[in-house]
């Protein structure tokens, strides 16, 4: 292990290598690392901002949903009320129509009854007159006995 000129050679080699490293290796590598660090920091900041925005959007969405729900409930209530109204209206209409038809039917029935009664009256008076004729064996002038027949018919 004697000292010799290798020492100087190594010193020169080291100076050259360090110079090369300082000139051509260190700066680009460190620049890349620092650039990436910056990018990561920016990315993290952006992510945080995104989170915040998401939070805000969520709150907004919640607000919108609750509004919509309220509105929907309102509409539903209105619809119920309207439905009830329609049903009630329908019921009222139905009742009215039934009453009307009932009344019409009654009127018709009355009319028919009256008509039948009149007819019957006429026939009865005719029968009465015929039977009386037979009994009396003579003709009764219906014109002479019109007052009696009318009395009879009205009594029937």
């Amino acid at each position, binding site marked *: 292990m004697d*000292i010799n000129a290798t020492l100087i*050679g190594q010193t020169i*080699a080291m100076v050259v290598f360090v110079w*090369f490293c300082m000139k*051509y290796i260190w700066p680009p590598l460190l620049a890349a690392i620092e650039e990436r660090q910056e990018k990561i920091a920016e990315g993290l900041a952006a992510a945080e901002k995104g989170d915040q925005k998401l939070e805000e959007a969520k709150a907004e969405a919640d607000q919108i949903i609750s509004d919509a729900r309220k509105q929907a409930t309102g509409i539903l209530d209105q619809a119920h009320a309207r439905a009830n109204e329609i049903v009630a209206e329908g019921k009222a209409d139905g009742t009215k129509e039934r009453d009307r038809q009932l009344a019409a039917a009654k009127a018709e029935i009355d009319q028919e009854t009256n008509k039948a009664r009149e007819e019957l009256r006429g026939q009865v008076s005719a029968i009465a007159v015929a039977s009386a004729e037979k009994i009396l064996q003579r003709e009764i002038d219906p014109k002479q006995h019109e007052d009696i027949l009318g009395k009879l018919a009205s009594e029937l």
Partner: protein
Amino acid sequence: MAEAGHGPQTSGDYITHHLQNLQVCKDESGAWVWNECAGNMAAINVDSMFWSVLLGLIFLVAFRNVAKKTSADKPGKFQAFVEIIVDFVDTSVKDTFHGKSKLIAPLGLTIFVWVFLMNLMDLVPVDWIPMAAAAAGIPYMKVVPTTDVNITFGMSIAVFILIIIYTHMAKGPLGLIKDLTLHPIAPPTKGIGIIAAPFIIAFNFILETVALVAKPISLSLRLFGNMFAGELIFILIALIGWFQLPLHFGWAVFHVLIVTLQAFIFMMLTIVYLSLASESH
């Protein structure tokens, strides 16, 4: 293989052979000679230089490739790996060195990766490369550059020069002299005590000079000692025949720790020394 007693080679020969650098130097007649350079200060350890420069170039090429097509958006796997190392070094530098310097961080990165790669050569089984070299006609081949004191000392001298330069830059031309003479005991500037000032200055100077010179020496010898000892144990393990396999594995696992740790320590101490040099007391 490395078994003692096979062939004419003794264990002593084996170890000595493994610890011998491939050297080239000029002899007295001025001709280049190989491996007869004991005591010649102008000799060059060709193997140490070769592996050191090769590993340094591997580091530079690999990292330069990443740096060229680096992208902040989608790092590839190797880029991610490189960036982990860069970030690790950058954090270490920022934690320790508070001034602004374009040099310290790349210096730390170069030292860390380069020393790590040189140390890592220790994990290549001790006979593989030397035997391949012997087959190619090269008699000696020491593959771990950091087990050569010249290599570690060469690096620490570069660091030492930087310490001087940084002191000079931070404290001016007189700063270094002041650092060396006015600490740790401040000499009295007035009163009767002024007589003692020269002695105190002389005392400070000796103390601080030793402290200053001890920095590069301890830096280089720490790395050299650790790696040399580790290598020596690998060589000793390689001597014991087939039972070396589990032992070798065990020591290699442990050595991975030393390899990384020593590279880190060399880098960290360099940063610390330079930050001490550029900070005023």
